[in-house]
């Protein structure tokens, strides 16, 4: 047994920490707090210049050929630092999907532009009437001569307002069964008829609702075959191996521990309040277990082992305890913990208030806890399908 990520991954960690120290300034942090964009073009281009957008892609496609451990170290450090990384994450997956399922033209023209950081693609799966039931998408595309006309609405299209394209799941055959009548398109956000409106969240992240009113697009914008969109979604979601939030749990734990250490000036190893001590121990264990579950899925990925529900378990466990710990820690802190970043007397620069607001979505996006539990039940415990 060996629980270490290895030297290559540790080198990535060091490199990314240096990058963050040099480039991710207080101004950038404040800008992300103000906008909640989840993406920052100037920082993104710098990462792309160093090859990080395409780091996991195979070398034969001009990718970095980085292994899963190196990718874990990259994502870990960015996420832990609160870096606006959604663009990076999504585009790593979309680029990979296009290489596997896109047309020759898409591979030749779009993939290099994604790798170089010139364009960014947002994910358009969710709609007002289809969330957990992704395959129930109603946004439609109808063929007119050599092009398609898109009608409908997407919801929660994060980074859509900064993206050049939306990777959009639409219905192309209303008569076919739910999963059979779907097709995937890359819809340019500057096409006439595309309207994007902000949706603000309690956690501070901005997301969007996107309207398509008779948007005309070329057939060349289609990804995969007509009515085979579900296979494309499954491939893309499969790459998005559930990572969980161990990195952010660790960040919260460190803030809490630093606060506890600073609030006792005698050199004692006991905190003044045993309830606090107990909660710090719990948070440490929960962060450790979330990290180990994630290491396990990463290890399986690196070894080419078929995963069953390991990624799902990682996400489910981590999301639940992250939310619980943010709440339980807040409960011990008293009213000063309510003060937001930038106010006088705020505890740990408002980190605990921020965690309390930001954690509920962990159990919602990318598959809600209920959906994840049903999957685990079905696959790991051989329960009948119950959704």
């Amino acid at each position, binding site marked *: *047994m*060996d*629980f*270490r*990520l*290895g030297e290559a991954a540790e080198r990535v960690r060091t490199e990314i920490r240096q990058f963050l120290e040099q480039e991710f300034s207080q101004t950038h942090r404040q800008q992300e707090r103000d906008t909640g964009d989840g993406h920052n073009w100037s920082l993104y281009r710098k990462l792309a210049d160093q090859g990080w957008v395409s780091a996991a892609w195979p070398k034969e496609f001009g990718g970095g050929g980085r292994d899963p*451990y190196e990718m874990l170290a990259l994502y870990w450090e960015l996420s832990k630092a609160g870096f606006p990384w959604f663009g990076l994450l999504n585009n790593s997956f979309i680029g990979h999907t296009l290489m596997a399922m896109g047309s020759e033209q898409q591979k030749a023209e779009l993939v290099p532009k994604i790798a170089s950081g010139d364009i960014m693609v947002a994910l358009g799966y969710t709609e007002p009437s289809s969330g957990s039931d992704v395959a129930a998408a109603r946004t439609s595309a109808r063929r007119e001569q050599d092009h398609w006309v898109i009608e409908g609405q997407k919801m929660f299209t994060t980074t859509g307002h900064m993206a050049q394209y939306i990777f959009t799941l639409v219905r192309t055959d209303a008569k076919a069964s739910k999963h059979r009548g779907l097709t995937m398109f890359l819809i340019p956000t500057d096409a006439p008829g595309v309207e994007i409106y902000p949706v603000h969240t309690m956690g501070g992240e901005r997301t969007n609702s996107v309207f398509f009113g008779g948007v005309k697009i070329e057939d060349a914008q289609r990804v995969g075959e007509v009515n085979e969109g579900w296979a494309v979604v499954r491939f893309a979601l499969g790459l998005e191996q559930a990572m969980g939030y161990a990195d952010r749990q660790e960040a919260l734990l460190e803030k809490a*521990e630093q606060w*506890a*250490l600073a609030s006792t000036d005698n*050199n004692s*190893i*006991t*905190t003044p309040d*045993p309830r606090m*001590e*107990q*909660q*710090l*121990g*719990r948070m*440490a*264990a929960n962060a*450790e*277990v*979330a990290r*180990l*579950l994630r*290491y*396990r899925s*990463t*290890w399986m990925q*690196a070894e080419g082992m078929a995963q069953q*529900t*390991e990624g799902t*378990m*990682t996400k*489910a*466990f981590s999301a*639940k305890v992250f939310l619980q710990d943010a709440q339980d820690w807040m409960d011990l802190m008293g009213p000063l913990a309510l003060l937001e970043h930038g106010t006088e007397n705020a505890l740990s620069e408002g980190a605990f208030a921020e965690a309390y607001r930001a954690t509920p979505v962990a159990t919602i996006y990318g598959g809600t806890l*209920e959906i*994840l*539990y*049903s999957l*685990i*039940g079905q696959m*790991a*415990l*051989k*329960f*009948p*399908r*119950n*959704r």
Partner: protein
Amino acid sequence: MDLSLDESQRILQRSFSEFFARECPTELVRGSESTGFDETLWRRFCELGAAAMGLPQAYGGLDMGLFDLGLVAAQIGQSLAPLPFADVASAGRLLATLPDVDEALMTSIAEGTGLISLCDRSQELPGGNKVCLPNGAIVAKVITMQGEDLLLWDLEPQHATVANMGSGALAIHDLSLAVPRRLASGPQARMQFEHALAEWKLLVAAMQTGLAKKALEIGADYARTRIQFDVPIASFQAIAHPLAEAAAQVDGAELLWQQAAWSRANSAKRFLELASMALAFCSQVARHTSDVALHTHGGYGFTTEYDIQLFYRRSGAWSCYFGGVSNAYCEVARQRRANAMAGK
């Protein structure tokens, strides 16, 4: 990174799993409810070399590491085998590291005839000399740390098991009646004692994880086969989801004790912290999982006829050995803090 067992570990795991499947059916566990020990089973277990595993070859041991002991402890947890393995193994390993080793004692431990235990602070009764030992009814000696001294006590032989919720071989001893032998003293001795306690905790964490795995399996089997409202109850999310949540926790518990055991040789700075963490988390998961699995059985889970209650009671009992889950979490926080301060 490599999270797989190597060939010899797989063989070890398989042979003990087969051993307990064959030698320790539920009838045996139920038959030892009042004593918490089965002498024949212990003898057979020792014939496999189990008591010698973690000891140095010089004393008839097999020189195996803590991780391998953990694999055996997990199988004990799965089968609820009434054996004092964790206590004896950790105490024996402590003795082997001390100066002036009593060779006869070491050999008897390796053979399985010498039964010995450590005593943690939380097992001392308030107000004096009495200690409440998880396997007090069968161990003949106990090691304590008092002040700067590491002491070895001879216990009265054949103490009766006190009726207890977890059906362990629990007994209370009055140490004021005995005269201890000093084994060592000073900070080095204290550190060795702390590490031995941590090994004991780790082995209990592995037992709890094995217990939780089996409890989950029993609960999930029942959920798939019990029909109500014309469908298996597993098709109700209110039944399926808590079991699915427990499944993820059990996997996490296993990784946690395994990492803690691995850290003993590879990342020693964190060993004490990780052993307490494994004890806290794995105990919590075992308790929770057996509770969920029991609830899955409806009224039947509450009857003595069904096995799940055996798991429910033992997970609760094993959680209490070192002062409880919340106490172990506090220990984690203190150890992390001590590490952080030492790092400065």
